[in-house]
């Protein structure tokens, strides 16, 4: 068995694109090409390293292809703590380390099925690469539906991608916010309430979800009630990550590691992992 | 504990299964005790203030500056214009050197340490009632206790090994009574939780005493043979019926009676208490009340029982024993006692000041008025840990010279004129004395940074610069000198401490095996004294302007102001995101939820943090851990003092809380 390495690949910030007040997309150019990163799959993640600040995990928000040159690593980062805070202070050209790609991404048989993507808040960043990939590789103009819920209009991210997707045939982007402002003329409400409608409209046979744990649980249940089998619903689970290699224990959920066995799990698998949704759910299911 | 060392660095800590006290256990702080040693901001060179900045300097320069400043202060305003605040964490040898430095080098009795703000009432209170202010029994007595009463402390948080023995006592049938306004972790295990209002310890105890006398549960024979003042005590609690005590304390009368019965009628009843008792304007009287309770029920001087103040810092007992106090030399020999003074004058070859000196807070007050010009602060962070922080800062800023001996650049060190780096516990040899009076060796595991030495060594060099050397050549030599002058330590030596796990004082001769249980035949001053105490209200109570009571407490994973523990990654990571504990009803009324940024205001100042909504605090009371420099409750706490022990009322003041 081959051993892992904790040595990050050297990269530099090539571009920074603001998404919202506290979220930015970073385009990093690796000093040397890394085949594994060029071949990264949608749903996989990397660990960004800042010497002196440690590392943090981010799903790749673009993959080598039409929108990202080979040798680049693209991640969308929300400023929450010391490492992301330090990252936001760095200028273009500054050094950043990258480890990865890690994890199990979306399953291969997802791409050619009409899919409903359900994104809650910054969970959209974990799905962006998958949505882009499906739009590119689906048979013909097979339906791709995105249901994206943000807290309020100002917190919407990936707006350029959302606009671009709306232009593509067969792609339906449905948005809702919980707290509208004067400019908002779209749907208002809780994301999960729109799942039934979006599923029907998109004639989806698969669903992929990412968002806060409570939303994940509610969305999974709603999709189940709407008729999707657990093997056909996928969730990108998030956890505090440290090593990315299934060793440090921080991301474990029951007997699995989110970093190696996930972060994408099918709903059928999650039903065997009660800790995936937090203690409230587990309390109802004894161990 | 055992320190693992590889290539000159401490790599980990492990417990000792055979140790009679720790028995293979440590708390989270113990398991991480070595992490701060390699922190990158560990001080390795002296610092000297040049203008607004502290800059690295040579030892020559720094010691020269310190000596010059001390000389100048003495010359300008007399020896009492200087003072020393000793460390409760450094060794006995360091503490003894600190007090000798103050007295024999500077010529002042202005020497004190942080026991002032934690257990000075225990020293004062139990000193009056029993003749000795230390824990009367040993931690091992918990293994034989059938009733354990804990007042104003949560040992599972702050004395986890003692907490462990209490938790282990329950399965074998011991009954646990906890008296604390907060629902602490220990209270969750209690058979009876007396949730008394802040500052009502005396009414609660007097109510228990009333029930004890009324039901004939007192230890009549014991009182007759070994105590004085029983009649006066009985008369003084006649008015404290359980109903009256209940009305004042908020504890149901039936619970007061039940607690009294359990405690009084159980032969082996162990009473432990902490800062919830001492940190009040009536702290000394609170301690006397508990002592009355323990004596009236005959629980002092036998196994499985006793009255036991839980000392918090690793060597605060030792710092007290070494006489780093303004009114006593080592072994509690009084400065004002001519014979004691003559003995130390002969031992030290110097004439010594007669008048007791100033306490820590009095030194700060004197700094503010200009009466105190130069202060040496050793291993302590009063800028964070003392009440009314603005006043503390003002005091330290008013000094002509502040000289700090420290491991790190603490908030106090940042205000200094000279900072001298010191060796840590892992880098020097010496002794510590634990809360159960157990003197143990601490052994050097690794070398400190080049030039960095133990406190006593630095003070010796400074003394030589001041032309008044103390004559110290080795740590063992410091201990031997101290033991020769200190009857309760007279039989202890480094050689005796080499084998075994320490000796408990009093240990008066080389063949004395030490004293696990005090007062077995007689009290230190003969008979135990029962002293009536009346209700004393807190200095400041909630009112219309400041409608909530604020109390302070400690968390398991932080030690003091965190200079050591906050540099351990997994301990720092444990810090809660919000530092104001607030009851749900009080939170709702103010539109506060967990995580809401809040402002806490008092007559002294204001502090900001985030809220943590919890019914662990009673309605009407909020609570903050005192550790964190970024949100120190001491910006708002009250510096009103216990008149006897000069202890500030850190445990209760009036505040207003609002979201911000």
């Amino acid at each position, binding site marked *: 068995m081959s051993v892992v390495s904790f040595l990050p690949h050297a990269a530099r910030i090539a571009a920074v694109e603001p998404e919202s007040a506290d979220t930015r997309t970073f385009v990093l150019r690796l000093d040397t090409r890394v085949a594994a990163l060029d071949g990264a799959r949608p749903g996989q993640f990397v660990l960004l390293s800042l010497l002196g600040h*440690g590392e943090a995990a981010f799903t790749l928000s673009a993959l080598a292809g039409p929108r990202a040159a080979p040798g680049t690593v693209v991640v969308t980062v929300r400023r929450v703590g010391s490492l992301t805070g330090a990252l936001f202070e760095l200028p273009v050209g500054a050094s950043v380390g990258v480890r990865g790609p890690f994890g199990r991404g979306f399953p291969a048989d997802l791409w050619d099925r009409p899919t409903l993507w359900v994104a809650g808040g910054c969970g959209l960043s974990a799905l962006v690469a998958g949505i882009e990939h499906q739009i590119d590789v689906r048979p013909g103009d097979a339906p791709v539906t995105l249901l994206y819920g943000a807290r309020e209009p100002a917190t919407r991210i990936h707006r350029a991608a959302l606009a671009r997707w709306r232009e593509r045939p067969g792609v339906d982007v449905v948005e809702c916010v919980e707290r509208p402002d004067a400019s908002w003329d779209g749907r208002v409400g809780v994301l999960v309430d729109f799942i039934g409608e979006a599923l029907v409209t998109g004639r989806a046979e698969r669903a992929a979800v990412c968002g806060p744990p409570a939303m994940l649980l509610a969305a999974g249940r709603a999709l189940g009630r709407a008729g999707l089998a657990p093997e056909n619903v996928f969730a990108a689970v998030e956890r505090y990550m440290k090593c990315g290699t299934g060793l440090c*224990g921080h991301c474990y959920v029951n007997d699995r590691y989110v970093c190696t066995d996930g972060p994408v799990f099918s709903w059928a698998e999650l039903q065997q992992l009660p800790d995936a949704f937090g203690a409230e759910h587990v309390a109802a299911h004894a161990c | 504990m055992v320190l*693992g060392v590889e290539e000159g660095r401490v790599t*980990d800590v492990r417990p*000792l299964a055979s140790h009679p006290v720790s028995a293979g256990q440590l708390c989270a702080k113990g398991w991480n005790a070595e992490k701060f040693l390699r922190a990158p901001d560990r001080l390795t060179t002296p610092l000297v203030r040049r203008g607004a900045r502290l800059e690295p300097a040579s030892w020559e320069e720094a010691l020269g500056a310190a000596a010059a400043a001390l000389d100048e202060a003495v010359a300008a305003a007399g020896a009492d214009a200087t003072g020393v605040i000793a460390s409760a964490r450094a060794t006995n040898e360091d503490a003894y050197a600190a007090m000798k430095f103050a007295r024999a080098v500077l010529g002042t009795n202005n020497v004190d340490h942080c026991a002032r703000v934690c257990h000075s009432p225990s020293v004062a209170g139990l000193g009056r009632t029993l003749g000795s202010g230390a824990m009367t029994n040993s931690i091992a007595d918990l293994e034989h206790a059938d009733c354990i009463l804990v007042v104003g402390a949560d040992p599972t948080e702050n004395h986890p090994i003692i907490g462990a023995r209490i*938790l282990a006592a329950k399965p074998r049938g011991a009954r646990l009574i906890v008296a604390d306004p907060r629902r602490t972790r220990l209270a969750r295990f209690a058979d009876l939780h007396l949730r008394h209002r802040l500052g009502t310890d005396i009414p609660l105890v007097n109510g228990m005493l009333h029930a004890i006398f009324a039901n004939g549960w007192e230890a009549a024979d014991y009182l007759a043979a070994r105590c004085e003042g029983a009649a006066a005590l009985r008369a003084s609690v006649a008015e404290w019926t359980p109903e009256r005590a209940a009305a004042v304390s908020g504890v149901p009368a039936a619970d007061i009676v039940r607690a009294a019965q359990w405690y009084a009628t159980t032969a082996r009843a162990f009473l432990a208490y902490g800062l919830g008792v001492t940190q009040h304007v009536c702290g000394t009287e609170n301690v006397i009340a508990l002592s009355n309770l323990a004596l009236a029920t005959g629980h002092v001087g036998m196994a499985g029982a006793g009255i036991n103040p839980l000392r918090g810092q690793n060597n605060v007992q030792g710092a007290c024993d070494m006489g780093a106090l303004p009114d006593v030399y080592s072994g509690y020999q009084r400065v004002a006692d001519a014979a004691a003074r003559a003995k130390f004058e002969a031992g030290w070859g110097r004439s010594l000041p007669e008048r007791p000196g100033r306490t820590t807070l009095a030194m700060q007050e004197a700094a503010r008025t200009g009466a105190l010009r130069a202060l040496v602060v050793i291993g302590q962070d009063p800028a964070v840990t003392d009440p009314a922080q603005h006043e503390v800062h003002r005091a330290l800023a008013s000094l002509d010279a502040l000289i700090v001996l420290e491991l790190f650049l603490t908030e106090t060190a940042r205000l200094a004129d000279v900072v001298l780096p010191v060796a840590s516990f892992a880098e020097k040899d010496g002794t510590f004395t634990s809360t159960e009076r157990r003197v143990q060796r601490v052994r050097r595991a690794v070398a400190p940074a080049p030039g960095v030495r133990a406190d006593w060594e630095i003070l010796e060099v400074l003394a030589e610069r001041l032309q008044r050397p103390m004559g110290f050549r080795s740590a063992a030599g410091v201990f031997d000198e101290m033991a020769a002058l200190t009857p309760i330590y007279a039989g202890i030596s480094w050689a005796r401490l080499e084998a075994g796990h320490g000796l408990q004082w009093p240990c008066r001769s080389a063949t004395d095996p030490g004293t696990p249980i005090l007062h077995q035949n007689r009290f230190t001053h003969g008979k135990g004294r029962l002293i009536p105490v009346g209700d004393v209200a807190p200095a400041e109570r909630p009112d219309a302007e400041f409608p909530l009571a604020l109390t302070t407490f400690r968390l398991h994973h932080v030690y003091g102001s965190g200079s050591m523990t906050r540099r351990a990654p997994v301990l720092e990571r444990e810090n809660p995101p919000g530092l104001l504990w607030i009851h749900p009803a009080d939170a709702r009324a103010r539109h506060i939820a967990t995580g809401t940024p809040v402002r806490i205001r008092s007559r002294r100042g204001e502090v900001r943090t985030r809220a943590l909504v919890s019914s662990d605090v009673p309605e009407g009371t909020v609570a903050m851990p005192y550790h964190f420099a970024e949100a120190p409750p001491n910006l708002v706490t009250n510096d009103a003092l216990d008149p006897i022990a000069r202890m500030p009322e850190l445990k209760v003041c009036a505040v207003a809380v609002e979201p911000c």
Partner: protein
Amino acid sequence: MVLAGRGAVDELRAALAAQRALIEPRWQGDGIEWVETTGSGPTAALAPFDWDVGLPLPSPKRFFFPPRETLLRWHGDAVEEVLPAPRPFALFGLRSCDVTAIAYQDRFFAADPAYVRRRAAAFLVVVQCRTACAGGFCVDVDAGPFASSGFDLALTLLSDERVLLEVGSAEGAAAIAAARLRTEPADARTRTIRGEVEAAARASFPPRPFIARARARLDAGEIRDEEWQALGPACLACTGCTSLCPTCSCFTMTDEVAAGGGERVRYWDSCLLEGFQREASGHHPAPRPGDRVRRFWYHKLSADFVREFGRVGCVGCGRCDVTCPGSIGALRVLERLGA
């Protein structure tokens, strides 16, 4: 399997000490520690072997997964990976519980570069337990009293004069040859005696039926949330259990900055700490102490881990019962859950 005289053990130790650091459990001061026994060459230079020394409180995992390990070092922007270059060493006197735990961690850390290097430098010699130790329950978790694999050599003291040596690897056989031990093959009668010694050891453990009951309840999903929440307050998160447990493996990584550079290091971590899984958003998958206690015992006792590791995580060494201030080490917890 071969037989030798009792003196062969010291000859073996001396021969190993000539090639490797010889590390053995030994009383040092007031505790049993893993001590590098100095001296090589003639047997007389080594301290006598102690067949009856108890289990050191620290587990031997520290030789492969140390409490602190540097992963990277940098100066300015130049970063290099740091890998250990351990001297060859022998752990002489492992008990079945600990060697079972080493095999468990061998699987867990198979992809870890530092662990693999340290492990490759090790030579493991087991002493088979002839009697139960005070707090151990290896027999109830299939981890003793005798080890059947995972060692280079295993020694059983059969009588005052004879020692049985089981060879567990080619290196073990080579060590016997290199030490020029005078041995004879073990015959059928000797094997029978070995069986009897093992059976006697097994029988010396007090019956603890609650262990099997607790494990069955756990695997059937029968343990109620309130049982875990009742244990929760007794957990102080002191991290003693996870530090001493020979199969615990969680760690954190942190950057330690020094002048002009720094190191990325890993330290032992503990899933009982509240901050272990708290997320930056504030969300916490295991917010109550009882949740974390449940998670820990799930990892140590659940049959779910047999698939990947061939056995449950707990090896019955009893260290957690010694070190837990809340009296909720393994036996105490199993007693409550299996009551």
